[in-house]
């Protein structure tokens, strides 16, 4: 059986939800420059996250007593895709809403959940993901950061890298080694810890990327104490927990909407009667956008029903990244002064930003090569 994506059967959003979100964006997002909106889930804005939290749009699938509203995965999907398409600066709460919260809900103890989830849902508590290390990028299983059991908890030593927005975050959920070094089973002996970044022994160093933004960081952990109750799930089960988390990370609309602000900006700028080339380009984008959204919604429906659609998620992410990267490239190739209509510079600036940012689209969240390896395994080739 090849991976399948049956079309969803019910609208993801309750009537009126999109209108409510769009009205909110009209006052909160529309005034930002297109180049800023193009940063979308890389754009850090705590005030925006708090405003979103107040309206109940963070952690919405969680139970009411933990700050959520018991919404379905598909309803959350509608909120998230609206945020991304509008280019809302969602980075502050993004990781916590998408996956850290889900992990806490599933594996955290009651006290941890009661303490953290309501603050995440309020848009006040921010998380990052500690997976990659200087010596462990795509080969995650070779990571060396180690937690050693001590009185009342763990002592952690090592370092993490490419940790998005760690300089602003309160906590990192890190994958660390708690068992013996890799033997026959390379995936044994890992655990997940919730590490408070204000702890003594934590040093965070932002890394500037080629666009001039500093959204990712290197983190040094020097004998950092983590209380025992901040172990997530089972000791030694870290690898399986992370794998389940990755389907959440890979299939969402952020995997094909990264260049969307540019598409809307082009449509708003283009003259009344664009020629065949730009008409066809617009059509190809709209058609691929529709296809990817249908596929991504199919994966969301599988997540909703409790499946772990790892292969389908990898397919959406790889196809989505190809699309996101093609948008600035194809637009640049079709560049034609007459067809531009009136661009006061916003379009060119947005295009430049996305051209420079686009290499990251097939690196972050699992490289293209890793994803294709996962798909090949799913096809029975490995």
């Amino acid at each position, binding site marked *: 059986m*090849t*991976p*399948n*994506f*049956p*079309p*969803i*059967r*019910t*609208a*993801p*959003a309750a*009537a009126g939800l*999109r209108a409510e979100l*769009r009205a909110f964006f009209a006052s909160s997002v529309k005034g930002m420059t297109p180049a800023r909106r193009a940063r979308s889930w890389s754009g850090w804005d705590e005030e925006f996250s708090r405003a979103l939290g107040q309206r109940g749009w963070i952690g919405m699938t969680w139970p009411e007593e933990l700050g959520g509203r018991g919404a379905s995965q598909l309803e959350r999907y509608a909120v998230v*895709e*609206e945020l991304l*398409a*509008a280019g809302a600066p969602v980075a502050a709460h993004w990781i916590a809403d998408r996956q850290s919260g889900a992990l806490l809900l599933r594996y955290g103890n009651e006290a941890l959940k009661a303490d953290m989830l309501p603050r995440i849902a309020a848009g006040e508590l921010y998380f990052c993901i500690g997976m990659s290390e200087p010596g462990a990028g795509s080969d995650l299983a070779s990571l060396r950061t180690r937690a050693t059991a001590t009185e009342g908890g763990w002592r952690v030593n090592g370092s993490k890298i490419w940790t998005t927005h760690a300089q602003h975050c309160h906590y990192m959920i890190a994958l660390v080694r708690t068992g013996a070094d890799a033997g026959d089973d390379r995936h044994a002996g890992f655990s997940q810890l919730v590490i408070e970044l204000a702890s003594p022994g934590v040093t965070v160093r932002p890394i500037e990327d080629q666009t001039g933004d500093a959204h990712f960081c290197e983190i040094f952990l020097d004998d950092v104490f983590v209380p025992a109750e901040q172990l997530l799930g089972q000791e030694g089960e870290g690898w399986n927990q992370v794998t389940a988390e990755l389907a959440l990370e890979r299939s969402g609309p952020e995997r094909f909407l990264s260049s*969307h602000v540019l*598409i*809307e900006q082009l*449509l*708003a700028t*283009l003259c009344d009667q*664009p020629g*065949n080339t*730009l*008409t*066809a*380009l*617009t*059509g*190809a984008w*709209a*058609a*691929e*956008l*529709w*296809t*990817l*959204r*249908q*596929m991504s919604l*199919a994966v969301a429906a599988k997540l909703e029903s409790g499946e772990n659609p790892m292969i*389908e998620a990898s*397919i959406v992410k*790889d*196809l989505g990244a190809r699309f996101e990267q093609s948008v600035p490239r194809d637009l640049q190739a079709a560049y034609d002064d007459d067809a531009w209509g009136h661009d006061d510079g916003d379009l060119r600036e947005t295009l430049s930003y996305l051209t420079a940012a686009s290499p990251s689209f097939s690196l972050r969240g699992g490289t293209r*090569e890793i*994803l*294709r*390896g996962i*798909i*090949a395994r*799913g*096809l*029975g*080739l*490995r």
Partner: protein
Amino acid sequence: MNDRRTILTETVDRLFANLAEVGAREDGGKEFDGHWQSIEAIGLPLLMIPEEAGGFGGDWEDAGVVFRALGAHGLGLPLGETVLARAWLGRIGHKAPEGVGLFAFAKEGPDESATTLNDLPWTDRADWILLLRPDRWSLLDAAGAETRERNLLSGDPRASLVFHALDPIADGPLSEGTAMFFAEAALLRACQIAGAIETMLILAIDHVRERRQFGRPLARFQAIQHQLAILAEENAAASCAAASACQSATLGEAGFEIAAAKWRASRAADIAADIAHQVHGAIGFTREYALHAFTLRARAWGRDFGNETYWARTVGRIALAERPKPLWHWLTDRSDRLLETERKRNE
């Protein structure tokens, strides 16, 4: 999937597998009548004709399952053509004749006396042809035309028909134009392509797991694995787009979804065929091995009823006409509306 559709899927899968087994992919029409009789025996040519009108019933999603299965078994028999031509005649209000039907589109108005219909499949097996022109439909006797055969290597016999004088069996005005008929023809092809790509993927997987070079199966080479991952992605995209367009066509006006799906399927057909052939090596290029039954047909179907460029422009015109409404608002509102229709229908 509902029970009825599950049974339909299993039934056509069994029938088409049998037909492929007895040579229906390859025999160039030698045993055509026998193949067609077994298709008629279970009533498939009456698909999409309402049961109360003596038909098989079924909506676009049911038809999509059947059309996809044709592609998946490498069959180019004109079942989809007959089904759509009959269903359209029904909508126009004319009783469809028996037998094998085709349809064709022509740009000229009804006054033109000579008409050439290019590259139709199975012209020597067709009993009748539904010709659709911008403002008129005509039912033509296939025997009344001069046949100009062309070797188009499209997997099935194709020829151009020249009607020196149109002498229709029946005809009438077409008040709503041909656009929706043309789109449905494109959706037929999108479904067939999706089926063909899935089988290309399955054949490619089987081949690279069995074939050994340099002391190991081809499947162990990362270069091969990544090519097949791309093929699986194209398969998923074509399949999801075609199924989604069938869902939309069942629920109402689906001009955009069908245009997007045919664009996606045509695009996928070329990428998938390139990869499937590359990983098969020389054996996949032979007549003896079955791959060509899927790749030649998928490429031809990709060209039929609007290729990638045609449908990209069509979608582009639709999207641009909605300005200044953002593309995103238009696309999601439309999708929500369609799904709301489905919810109400299922209540």
